[in-house]
């Protein structure tokens, strides 16, 4: 047992005050620590040794386990080595046409709409063709069914509302359908689908609720580029919806106040009320509010529930650049289509090939309804927009708007989820649906209270469906103009009312009158790009071409072109110059169109004009190209950013009214008067002094309550909120498992970073901390060692384990890659074996459980590699699998003035891939005693790394994301989380890049028969974040249960999904739980790469004094880079410094130091602990034997 170094609480407080004042006085500790970690980040990480020779030796001695391990290792290694990065698909993409070209081509050829409709049942898929794609020679039922992604035919009645069989296609693989088209013509394709998540037959969860994506192939090829991203939406509802949910439609009489903050009954409510509201999920406060309330009277955001149902969707552009669905040309006769899975499984019922639906114009719609009247009712229908019936995505959830006192309902301090949309509802294809109850037949105006205050100078567009149908063409793009105030105005738009004498359309703005019958109707609003779509599409294509031109010029000039050198562009790249000239005209047109659309000349048109001007200069005078290249690049960047914003169509809605369309129709004021605003703002300000912002969402007052588990978290507020909503489940397990004490209520506190240290010092720390530095706190006795025998073996009176057992711990450990534990484990100098048990298991302390994990991967631009391959052949250019491949690429790249993005972590990668450990030491007691950077292998790796920057002159400082985007750096190693950044901020290169496992080192392995084989070792170092239990806790069991619960697959997966749902794709969570990580929304290719990399992870031990290694390694590198010192000399200079510091630090914490023999160390420890340490004795004996 660990001898207690703790001291009384009273003393601790005294010490804490002094330390606190010291901290405040003398250092900016945390800021520096942060600096420290970023600087030395790449040196920081990992290692464990898995020697083939050792295993083989064991295997020879008849160890079956070792044999099995060897066989398994071989299989894994060969599988990973066999990966070839295929760029064929990329070539196809590069040569692909866009839908605009496809459509134009069809028009040119005079192809017209078909008249007939056919339906193809999904279950009748082409088994032969599909089997062929799966690599089978011939379709054979048994063989096919055995395949992992072979589609499943589901029986009749599998989905409610469908008759006949359906087909389950998985998130990988491809399915073909063959059918006969009755006549030549243009067809739209509509799929009847069901967004499946759980397979009812097998009970297996096959999907993970992210967006569904397929590649469409017609007759074996992708007809146009956009067909690569056919997406299908899902159906999300709120958690209160399922149980007999009725959409709260409210009726008002004309003239009564619709929105009045003063009347909001939520402001005061009794203790009794609170209990009802917090405990009961179905409780409604009053008619129309379905939310739950927290202890403080805030409305709690309801959980989103996916409610899969039978849905229909036309194949259309995922970006909504075109406001109509795709029309495909088919000749009469037999054809095939295929859907290739990119993301998520999909249950398909049928495809309907039909001519595009006719939609009338508003003028015709109005004419058709001319006999109809506005109803003579004074009833106004009102729906609070936050009570939608369904949404397409999880991200669209009720928001709290504070900008206006009359947003309904409003409260000066508590959170009212009073609106929907905002920046959560801005991407093409996202829709929201409401149900309304119409009192009488007749013509109505639909009046939303809305605000678009994000995209200045632009408008947001929505497509309106009434009962699932577009009522008229104008409803395809209804505009919501920018304003920093709320607006109430009937839905309307520009309508062509006639022609003037020049034959030009006369356009007039009209408020649309919708004819609605009595009863229930659905209003659906979908984000589209509307009129902007076409212009944005043109600019987007232009941008892609300009990026290409930039790269081509760059390949000739390099990044610092000489303005006075004659590069002879006219001869070298005449196509680029002529391309620039034609691009200039396109951009000028786009700029004019944009100006016409928006109605004014905004920054966007100016940017376009500037680029056009620049293109004019560069395209017409080759001598100006080099001089203007830098400008050109920065303009392209600006344009890319602008496109990103222009594609976003944010819109916030407060409520929707359906008002009889009479002459003086009712339209409420959109904004509050001056005094109302002042009153609201003032009371909000006053209330801000009394509001507990850190506990928002807590269902009871937990501060200072006995028996509550205190958990600290330092993330953002949103994340804390998610965790807070999830912890109730933890507490609920107490009742389920009949162990309320093991699962107490959790008081989750959101604290500022850096609070943990002083709080722990003062003895006022939490039970569990969700962030922190486990080993640093651990060796100083502030964190509970989870690997402690007395904990594992403690028993209750009835003999049941008091806390948790060794088996429990081992079970939990299986959730993670073994490497994840290395940085949070360290040798335990206080370990005292019990009796004769020499179990080394307990000689290592484990100071927490990993929850996040990061590791590097190789990012590359597929398009550039494909281009280079076409030019130079795929012998010289291939995606590097080994470092040799990568080094040989440098030559190719430098010819083209392109670079490779590597960092100084390269040394560590190479060391780990060769099983060279970071520290010297043969056993657990000596690990970390001395650095291994002076070993021959490490010095070689160091030299290789230095050469990369010095001899090969690759850049040391650079912004990878940016250069990757422009293509200057088409290859680089970065943390895999860069994926998030690139997906969100560089949409123009969507599909043109991917990440794959790290380049590796060729090695020889031994298989179970003792034979050798070669494979590539792709090891990468992994860093982890961990949750830890504080030593002071008096709730070991509850704390353990909490970290066990938190790191479980389900909770980690849910947390990841929720975080993406609430914050967006950029916030993808890097969980350390292997299964939870795979269950996040990766495409099948990405998942494969990640899984492969997961097999090759290492951790760097965090032993006392570890910071000194990275620091000095960096010094050594800089001295090579800056002063040209010989690498090995440079490194040797620092070795003694490193080892000295390691020894000093180790000595401080009673670890063995380099100057001691194990026997000496053993004696010292025995003296200190007063016990005979047999296991150290055994290690010492081994060491002696090894020496001889």
């Amino acid at each position, binding site marked *: 047992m660990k001898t207690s*170094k703790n*001291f009384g609480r009273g*003393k601790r407080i005294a*010490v804490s005050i*002094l*330390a606190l*004042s*010291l*901290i*405040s*006085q*003398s*250092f*900016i*500790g*945390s800021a*520096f*620590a942060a*600096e*420290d970690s970023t*600087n030395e980040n790449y040196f920081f990480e990992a290692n464990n040794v898995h020697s083939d020779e050792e295993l083989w030796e064991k295997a020879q001695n008849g160890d079956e386990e070792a044999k099995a391990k060897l066989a398994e290792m071989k299989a894994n290694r060969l599988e990973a080595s066999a990966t070839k990065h295929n760029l064929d698909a990329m070539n196809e993409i590069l040569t692909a046409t866009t839908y605009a070209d496809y459509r134009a081509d069809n028009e040119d050829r005079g192809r017209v709409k078909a008249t007939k409709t056919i339906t193809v049942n999904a279950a009748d898929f082409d088994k032969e063709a599909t089997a062929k794609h799966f690599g089978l020679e011939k379709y054979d039922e048994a063989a096919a069914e055995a395949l992992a992604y072979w589609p499943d035919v589901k029986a009749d009645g599998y989905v409610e509302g469908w008759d006949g069989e359906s087909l389950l296609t998985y998130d990988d693989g491809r399915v073909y359908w063959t059918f006969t088209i009755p006549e030549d013509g243009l067809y739209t394709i509509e799929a009847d689908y069901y967004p499946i998540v759980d397979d009812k037959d097998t009970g297996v969860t096959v999907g993970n609720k992210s967006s569904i994506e397929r590649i469409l192939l017609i007759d074996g090829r992708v007809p146009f580029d956009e067909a690569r991203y056919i997406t299908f939406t899902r159906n999300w509802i709120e958690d209160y919806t399922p149980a007999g949910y009725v959409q709260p439609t409210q009726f008002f009489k004309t003239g009564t106040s619709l929105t009045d903050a003063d009347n909001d009954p939520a402001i005061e409510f009794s203790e009794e009320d609170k209990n009802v509201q917090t405990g009961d999920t179905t409780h409604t406060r009053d008619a129309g509010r379905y939310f739950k309330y927290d202890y403080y009277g805030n409305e709690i955001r309801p959980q989103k529930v996916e409610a899969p149902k039978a849905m229909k969707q036309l194949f259309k552009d995922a970006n909504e650049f075109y406001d109509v669905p795709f029309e495909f040309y088919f000749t009469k006769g037999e054809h095939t289509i295929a859907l290739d899975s990119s993301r998520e499984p999909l249950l398909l019922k049928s495809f309907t090939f039909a001519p595009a639906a006719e939609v009338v114009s508003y003028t015709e719609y109005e004419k058709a309804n001319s006999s109809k009247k506005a109803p003579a009712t004074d009833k106004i229908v009102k729906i609070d927009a936050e009570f939608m019936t369904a949404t397409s995505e999880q991200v669209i959830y009720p928001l709290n708007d504070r900008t206006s006192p009359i947003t309904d309902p409003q409260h000066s301090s508590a959170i009212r989820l009073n609106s929907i949309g905002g920046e959560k509802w801005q991407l093409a294809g996202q829709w929201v649906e409401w149900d309304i109850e119409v009192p009488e037949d007749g013509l109505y105006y639909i009046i939303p209270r809305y605000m678009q205050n994000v995209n200045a100078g632009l408008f947001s567009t929505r497509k309106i469906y009434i009962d699932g149908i577009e009522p008229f063409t104008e409803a395809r793009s209804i505009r919501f103009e920018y304003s920093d105030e709320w607006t109430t105005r009937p839905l309307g738009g520009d309508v062509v009312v006639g022609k003037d004498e020049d034959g030009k359309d006369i356009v007039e703005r009209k408020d649309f009158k919708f004819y609605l019958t009595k009863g229930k109707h659905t209003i659906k609003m979908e984000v589209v790009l509307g009129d902007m779509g076409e212009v944005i599409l043109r600019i987007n294509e232009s941008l892609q071409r300009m990026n290409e031109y930039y790269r081509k010029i760059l390949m000739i000039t390099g*990044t*610092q072109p*000489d303005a006075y050198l004659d590069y002879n562009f006219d001869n070298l790249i005449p196509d680029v110059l002529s391309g620039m000239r034609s691009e200039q005209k396109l951009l000028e047109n786009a700029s004019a169109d944009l100006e016409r659309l928006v109605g004014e000349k905004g920054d966007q048109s100016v940017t376009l004009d500037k680029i056009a001007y620049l293109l004019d200069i560069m395209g017409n005078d080759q001598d100006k190209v080099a001089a203007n290249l830098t400008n050109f690049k920065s303009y392209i960047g600006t344009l890319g950013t602008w496109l990103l914003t222009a594609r976003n169509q944010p819109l916030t809605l407060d409520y929707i009214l359906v008002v009889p369309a009479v002459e003086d129709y009712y339209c409420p004021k959109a904004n509050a008067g001056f005094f109302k605003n002042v009153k609201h703002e003032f009371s909000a300000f006053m209330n801000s002094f009394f509001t507990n912002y850190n506990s928002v969402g807590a269902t009871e007052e937990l501060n200072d309550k006995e028996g509550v588990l205190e958990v600290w978290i330092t993330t953002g507020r949103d994340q804390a909120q998610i965790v807070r909503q999830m912890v109730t489940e933890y507490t609920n397990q107490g009742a389920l498992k009949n162990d309320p004490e093991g699962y107490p209520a959790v008081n989750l506190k959101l604290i500022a970073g850096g609070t943990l*240290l002083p709080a*722990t*010092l003062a003895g006022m720390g939490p039970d569990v901390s969700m962030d922190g530095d486990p080993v*640093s*706190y651990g060796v*100083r*006795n*502030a964190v509970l060692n989870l690997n402690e025998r007395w904990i594992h073996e403690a028993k209750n009176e009835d003999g049941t384990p008091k806390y948790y057992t060794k088996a429990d711990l081992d079970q939990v450990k299986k959730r993670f890659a073994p490497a994840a534990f290395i940085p949070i484990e360290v040798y335990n100098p206080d370990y005292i074996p019990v009796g004769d048990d020499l179990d080394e298991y307990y000689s290592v302390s484990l100071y927490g459980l990993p929850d996040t994990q990061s590791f590097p991967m190789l990012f590359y631009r597929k398009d550039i590699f494909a281009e280079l391959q076409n030019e130079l052949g795929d012998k010289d250019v291939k995606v590097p699998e080994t470092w040799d491949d990568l080094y040989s690429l440098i030559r190719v790249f430098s010819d083209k003035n392109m670079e490779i993005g590597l960092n100084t972590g390269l040394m560590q990668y190479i060391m780990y891939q060769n099983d060279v450990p970071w520290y010297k030491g043969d056993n657990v007691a000596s690990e970390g005693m001395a650095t291994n950077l002076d070993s021959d292998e490490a010095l070689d790796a160091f030299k290789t790394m230095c050469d990369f920057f010095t001899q090969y*002159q690759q*850049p*040391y*400082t*650079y*912004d990878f994301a940016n250069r990757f985007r422009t293509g200057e750096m088409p290859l680089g190693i970065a943390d895999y989380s860069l994926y998030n950044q690139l997906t969100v901020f560089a949409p123009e290169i969507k599909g043109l890049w991917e990440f794959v496992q790290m380049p590796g080192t060729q090695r020889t392995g031994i298989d179970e028969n003792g034979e050798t084989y070669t494979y590539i070792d792709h090891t990468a170092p992994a860093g982890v974040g961990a949750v830890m239990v504080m030593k002071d806790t008096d709730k070991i069991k509850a704390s353990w249960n909490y970290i066990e619960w938190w790191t479980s697959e389900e909770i980690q997966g849910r947390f990841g999904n929720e975080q993406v749902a609430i914050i967006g794709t950029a916030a993808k969570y890097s969980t350390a739980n292997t299964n939870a990580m795979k269950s996040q929304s990766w495409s099948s290719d990405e998942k494969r790469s990640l899984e492969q990399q997961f097999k090759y992870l290492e951790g760097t031990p965090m032993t006392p004094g570890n*910071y000194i290694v990275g*620091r000095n390694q*960096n*010094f050594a590198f*800089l*001295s090579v*880079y*800056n*002063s040209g010192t010989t690498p090995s000399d440079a490194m040797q200079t620092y070795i003694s410094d490193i080892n000295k510091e390691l020894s000093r*630090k180790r000595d*401080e914490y009673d670890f063995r130091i380099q100057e001691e023999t194990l026997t000496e160390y053993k004696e010292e420890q025995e003296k200190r602990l007063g016990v005979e340490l047999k296991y150290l004795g055994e290690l010492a004996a081994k060491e002696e034997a090894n020496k001889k």
Partner: protein
Amino acid sequence: MSEKTLAKNQPKPKLRKDMTMLQWTIRNMKVNWRGYAMVAPYYVIFLTFTIVPVILSFVLSFTNFNMLEMPRFVGIDNYIRLILDDDIFLLAIQNTLIFATMTGPFSYLLSLLFAWFINELTPKFRSVVTLIFYAPSISGQVYLIWQVLFSGDQYGYVNGILMKMGLINAPVLWFSDANYIMPLVIVVALWTSLGTSFLSFIAGFQVVDKSLYEAAAVDGIKNRWQELWFVTLPMMRNQMMFAAVMSITGAFGFGAIITALCGFPSPDYCAWTIMHHLEDYGGSRWEVGYASAIATVLFIIQIAANTIIGKMLSKVGK
């Protein structure tokens, strides 16, 4: 009762000589309690947040304190190690003295000089120029502009220009190269440190009574230098003292800017100051005992520097 007894029972007259120093003080404090009550808030805060930490830090410097466990008394081990077994500390002292000289006296004199020149300008023009000089020190992290200028990327301004001119072929890592760090950091330090002293000098020049110049002229001042030395400077001794203290403290505490520019630690500790050493041991290595010893040394150096400055300033005008 006898007279004697009566005399004995008479209350003793409260005389200073009959009391100990302590009694006397307490008595006077009781009499003047209102005054003490008024200064109490300041003193409580000053004691808790300045005096106590300084003393505690001094006490801690004789212990081995790892931030989370009870400190262990180690005598003067920390000081011995600091002076005899810590090469980097000696390097830090050297660097700190260089920085202190540059940002202390040198920038002090520069400020004085500039302030004197600028004081001659017309008020409108003067306020503009004052703003220009003072801006770097008020606008917080504006020194990061240097990082953009001297970025190690080939797109960094200086690298870009030099490469374009053909003076260098590969980008220079300005802030990671031991050869350039010191000069660059000194320039930045000078640039940012001008502010406060400069402002107080400007203020000082404004308060000098104009009639004194006339009087001095009558007394036989011959030139502007004499005017400066015998009239202006003695009149603004307070401002000078303030500026001096500020710049000395600033000079020794100069660390954050270096960290922001060169990283922590700076390559090869080449721009390592005592502050850095303190932060390294206190913040990264969690050796608060040792860090306290460093702090104590720094404290002594600062006190010494301030005393010397005070002495020197008292010579002004004499």
